[in-house]
């Protein structure tokens, strides 16, 4: 069968299973099973077990339940309310007001978390309820969260940059530094969008808070102390050499416990509730990761992603056209495969093309991360959407609509990055050479 026909059939099957209300993890694994059995005489059971085991027994992934647990403990304190109370008077004149908390919160959290789903889950747990309570638009609250959650992949530390560095033998340090400005550019773009949206949609914003005198505003800053302590503690533990980026997540749990204890909300029932809730959320994500891992490994065996990448290579495209083709390839495939796996599966084919076209590999790493970020928010396979569905109960397809403007902004960011490569390359050049 033609690979493209085969892919289309698989996609149709995926939509059909999903429509019947089959769990997403089960649907992805089923797709892996069908892809394998239909094309190769290999034992699907052994491959399923190998794929799920090698995916889940992972040190990097342990940061996920830690961050989720941290968020769940904080959710049961007054931390979010305090934070929003402290920030409200300062943001009163900025169009979009507290919606910026999602964007800025995710950007700050990105400096701790290397994963997009963890960023989304933690910040969402803290902010979504408060924003809703204060009358902000759900569409914007969810959209900003889904979009800015992906910044976790761009600003160091970043799991995908490590994966890319290892596969292409680039320096992790350089890639990390290269990700900083593009990450901040995304933050700026998202905040800009929030401002424009708020100006155009005044009727959908909650009524303005009264403007407070400066002294009162400053005294309200005290309520930000726990948040500041948490951020400084977690980031500080990395830079002081007390914890690796993965270990910092556990530091977050202990700091959250300390905050909760200080606030008097820590007792056995709340701790138990937080722990069980975090266990379930982490299990939900891990289950989908396991299903997606089986699909990815099956795809590796069928060779379809490689074939498609080779097909793109066969045209001998110019630099700009190659980038465009690869972007489209990653966006389309990113709807159905998890972005990081996609990079892993196709590096061997794509890197020679990219090198031959004279593209800088550090720059391309940042570009790839941006494209993978887009894959995080496109249904039906997009991990930020899964996290948000579990937080808000909205369907991933509707969430995909909410996040569409942010997807467009990321496309704009990719264009800017292509037009001005120095957005990524200036900082590493200045710092390391």
């Amino acid at each position, binding site marked *: 069968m033609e690979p493209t026909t085969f892919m289309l059939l698989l996609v149709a099957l995926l939509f059909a299973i999903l*429509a*019947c*209300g*089959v*769990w*997403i993890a*089960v649907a992805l*694994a089923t797709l892996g*099973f069908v892809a394998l059995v239909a094309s190769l005489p290999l034992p699907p*059971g*052994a491959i*399923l*077990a190998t794929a*799920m*085991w090698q995916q*889940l*027994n*992972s*040190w990097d*992934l*342990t940061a996920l*339940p*830690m961050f989720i647990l941290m968020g769940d403990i904080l959710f049961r304190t007054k931390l979010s309310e305090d934070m929003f109370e402290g920030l409200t008077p300062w943001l009163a004149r900025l169009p979009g007001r507290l919606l910026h908390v999602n964007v800025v919160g995710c950007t700050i959290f990105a400096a701790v978390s290397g994963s997009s789903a963890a960023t989304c889950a933690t910040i969402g*747990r803290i902010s*979504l309820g408060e924003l809703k309570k204060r009358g902000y638009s*759900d569409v914007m609250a969810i959209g900003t969260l889904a979009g800015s959650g992906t910044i976790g992949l761009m600003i160091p530390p970043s799991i995908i940059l490590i994966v890319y560095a290892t596969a292409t033998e680039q320096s992790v340090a350089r890639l990390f530094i290269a990700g900083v400005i593009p990450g901040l550019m995304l933050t700026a773009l998202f905040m800009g969008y929030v401002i424009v949206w708020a100006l155009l949609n005044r009727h959908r914003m909650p009524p303005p808070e009264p403007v407070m005198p400066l002294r009162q505003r400053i005294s309200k800053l005290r309520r930000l102390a726990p948040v500041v302590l948490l951020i400084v503690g977690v980031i500080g*533990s990395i830079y*002081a*050499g*007390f*914890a690796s980026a993965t*270990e910092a*997540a*556990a*530091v977050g*749990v*202990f700091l959250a416990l300390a905050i909760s204890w200080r606030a008097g909300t820590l007792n056995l029932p709340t701790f138990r509730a937080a*722990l*069980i809730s975090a*266990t*379930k*959320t*982490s*299990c*939900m994500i*891990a*289950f*989908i990761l*396991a299903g997606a891992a089986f699909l990815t490994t099956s795809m590796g065996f069928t060779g379809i992603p490689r074939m498609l990448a080779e097909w793109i290579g066969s045209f001998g495209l110019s630099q700009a056209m190659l980038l465009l083709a690869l972007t489209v390839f990653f966006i389309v495939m990113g709807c159905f495969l998890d972005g990081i796996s996609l990079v892993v599966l196709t590096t061997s084919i794509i890197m020679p093309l990219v090198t031959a076209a004279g593209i800088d590999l550090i720059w391309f790493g940042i570009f790839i991360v941006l494209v993978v970020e887009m894959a995080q928010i496109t249904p*039906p396979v997009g991990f930020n959407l*899964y996290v948000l*569905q*579990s*937080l808000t*109960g*909205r*369907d*991933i*397809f*509707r969430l995909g609509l909410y996040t569409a403007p942010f997807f467009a902004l990321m496309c704009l960011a990719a264009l800017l990055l292509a037009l001005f490569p120095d957005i990524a390359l200036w900082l590493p050049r200045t710092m390391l050479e």
Partner: protein
Amino acid sequence: MRRALDLLYAAGLWLSALCILVIASLVGLQVVARIWDAILQALDLPRSGFVVLSLAEISGYLFAAASFLALAGTLKSGAHIRVTMLVNALPQRVRALIEAAALAFGALAAGFGTWAIGGYALESWRFGEVSPGLVQVPLVWPQAAMAAGAALLTIAFLDELTITVRTGRPSFRAAEDAVALGREG
């Protein structure tokens, strides 16, 4: 029967939570040791050099075990996500039928997973596979935990299937709908 099953799911969930707590504690211990060493060093005393051996490997195994042990409990509380948009738009009769089919399919898939992962664990046991690091962890332990979790999930799917056949809706539909109304936050 009902109580026995619920106890089983709860046991899986709590074992999973325990794994997560153990990861947090091991990492916490390591971080505290580093802080302690920094204090010793600042006082010009020799560092303790305490390390939690094979922390990364053991934590990875605990995470794999934790992820699967909680599967059944997570299903029963309606926290595994799926697309219910279309199912919800259907008349109750058809909806019950499709729900039952989805659950039966889930049981089939989870049963296959149990068999596959169980076989994988068995092979690790037969060949005495151990982790490559300093602490030699027999790989059959975390893998058997995963197989047990998958088996629990199979039971939970079958459990919900019988409930749906009897009552027309899975028991977690209420929880799923509560989330869907955005009540939880």
